[in-house]
């Protein structure tokens, strides 16, 4: 049976994503922290964009920078730095491409019986920042949201 992904806004400033991945934490961590492996899964094949380059200096204070190609020619960067790197159990990074509105992401890896539970926690600096990240905010109406879907995919693509 396929493992389920959950997504929840747990507070005004927080989003939490969870997923169990079959395989040991050691390998999941490796796939997340080695650029040549990261590049193979970060952009799902069904998405209209690709990862052009990927630099990751995975240690506390180290920087990462991703460049995406979107709609053929347009490119877009995502960058930030790692705040905490604890092999096989915990990664914390900033999302600086969003400026002061950028979230701090904490990812934990918890291994149990050959599977790894991933809990990804995004903490935004304010309610406004998360509301804005969720695009249309007060405008409501799903058509607006879907019109912005292409842009949203780009904002989703940050690590």
């Amino acid at each position, binding site marked *: 049976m396929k493992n389920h992904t959950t997504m929840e806004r747990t507070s005004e400033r927080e989003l939490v994503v969870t997923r169990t*991945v079959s395989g040991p934490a050691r390998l999941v961590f490796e796939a997340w922290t080695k650029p040549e*492996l990261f590049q193979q899964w970060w952009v799902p094949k069904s998405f209209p964009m690709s990862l052009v380059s990927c630099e990751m200096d995975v240690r506390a204070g180290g920087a990462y920078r991703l460049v995406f190609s979107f709609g053929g020619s347009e490119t877009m960067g995502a960058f930030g730095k790692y705040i905490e790197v604890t092999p096989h159990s915990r990664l914390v990074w900033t999302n600086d491409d969003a400026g002061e509105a950028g979230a701090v992401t904490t990812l934990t890896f918890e291994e149990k019986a050959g599977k790894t539970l991933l809990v990804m926690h995004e903490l935004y600096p304010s309610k406004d920042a998360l509301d804005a990240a*969720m695009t249309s905010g007060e405008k409501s109406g799903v058509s607006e949201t879907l019109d912005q879907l292409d842009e949203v995919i780009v904002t989703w693509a940050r690590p």
Partner: protein
Amino acid sequence: MNHMVQYSKGHLDASFSALSDATRRGVLEQLGRGDASITDLADKFHMTLTGMKKHVGVLEEAGLVATEKVGRVRTCRLGPGRLEAETAWLEGYRLLWDARFDELESLVQEMKRKEEIDGRNKRK
């Protein structure tokens, strides 16, 4: 605060499949600006009446559009079941991560198999 519980999974599925079509998204956008008859919509999107009726039917079933027939004209407006933008965004974001984790998982499985083969080869 849990926004996902406000909507049943079935409702979300119907909404997202209704929204998987560009014309239907365009119709919703159009109706966001004001009510319109099926004939208006068919003209606007350069479609036959029958084609437009089908699209409106799918949107109506998902609760995204409501229609009312007055005389010979069927008027369409945005329906009561439209998703809050935030819920739609969360579901979209969840779908992205779900797809991404699927890819991660198959890569990890591949790494695991490779390790096992390498391990066996070393022992030989």
